[in-house]
């Protein structure tokens, strides 16, 4: 059998990659209606306001309900204890 040309191999591999890219798009479309229904039902039933992503402090567990002035909120000059506090967004200034 004749050895395939390098361009055939390269273009086939690129085509496979493009098919993969298209497949990822199709996967996203197929899952489009599949929101977290269990989570949404629980939010509705319990009136939840926050994601349980950071449970270590009240201002990271419930950033939506925490005090307005989140930084140094425990007492003046108290640095935040937890690394995720540095990732929580500062208030908007608009």
């Amino acid at each position, binding site marked *: 059998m004749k050895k395939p040309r390098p361009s055939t191999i390269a273009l086939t591999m690129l085509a496979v990659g493009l098919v993969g890219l298209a497949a990822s798009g199709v996967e996203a479309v197929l899952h489009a209606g599949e929101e977290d229904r269990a989570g949404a039902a629980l939010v509705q039933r319990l009136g939840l306001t926050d994601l349980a*992503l950071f449970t270590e402090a009240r201002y990271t567990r419930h950033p939506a309900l925490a005090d307005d002035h989140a930084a140094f909120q425990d007492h003046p000059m108290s640095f935040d204890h937890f690394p995720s506090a540095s990732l929580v967004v500062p208030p908007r200034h608009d």
Partner: protein
Amino acid sequence: MTDWFNKQRYLIDFSLAALARRKVRNFGLLAVYSLLVFVLASVMLFTQGLRQEAKTVLASSPEVIVQRLVAGRQDLIPPGYLERIGRIRGVQKKEARLWGYYYDPVVKANYTFMVPGETPPAAGELVIGPALARARGLAPGNLISFRSYSGKLFTFKVAAVLPQASELMSADLVLLGTDDFRAFFDFPADHYTDIALSVANPSEVRNVASKLAAALPDSRPILREEVQRTYASLFDWREGIVLTILSGALLAFAILAWDKASGLSAEERREIGILKAIGWETGDVLRMKFWEGVLISCSAFLIGYLAAWVHVFHLDGALFRPVLQGWAVLYPQFSLPPRVDGLQLATLFFFTVFPYTAAVLVPIWRAAITDPDAVMRT
């Protein structure tokens, strides 16, 4: 058309042969390039997934939460407060809520204790979140004891564990009855943590909030749209921070790519000189190098992006877990449904593929327009 296609294929063959002559260098470049796209795409897909999830899930949270502030800190809702809200037009349903935090010294974790408005657990029973059940090794029917803040020991029976599918919202929740909650926290009678309001007409929400602020000056109304905005900006901020940290890596790669692509080696110069001397046109040399750039950058983009897709949506973002987990003991195990934003994908493509292809072409063009004799001699 066939002629054009055949010509491009020969140019690609030639480019690949040229790339194969410097195998280690080019494979190294492809690996680093793919890794960079992988990291950038992972951050992008993960934050986009979380942002969408927060948006859809929190769409059914209460329209307005009313907190009472004393000296700028949240305080309990005293008796009679709820009745004063009732007179505001547009409020369909008002519900005083009981919830709070409990630190469990056994596993050094914080729990959120909450009394559900509808169908609370029976006296002496708890419904717990899945991450908590994992951390304490609990199953329905087990008994668990907590020492309350007043020092008394309370024993509860686990009636049920909340479904794993809702873990992103319920990882650390402990649901219990009103009497149990009040006894456990020694909560003052007729006091509540905050108030949730339902407003029938969405355009009335802002009016209700301003009427609340006028009627109850010590109240702080938190609107659902503010909650959603908090989460949108939280993830934007987080994505921004990660990308800022990554920008060092991005710059390092830009320098590497620029150096590789723009600093033509003597060997490459001689190659171009020979090609021109044997009759290649400037356009052909450029096309050959263009294919070289396209093959490397498109391969790296596809490899990096598809690897990121698998990482985020099929391996649940395993590499980000330690970063997101922070210092929390309880961390939800969740999978994000696959989502893609066309604009973000196009931006990623533009910022990773185009600069490299351009960086390859400019120096080659400069070499290719000079006299072959001069190119070969330098």
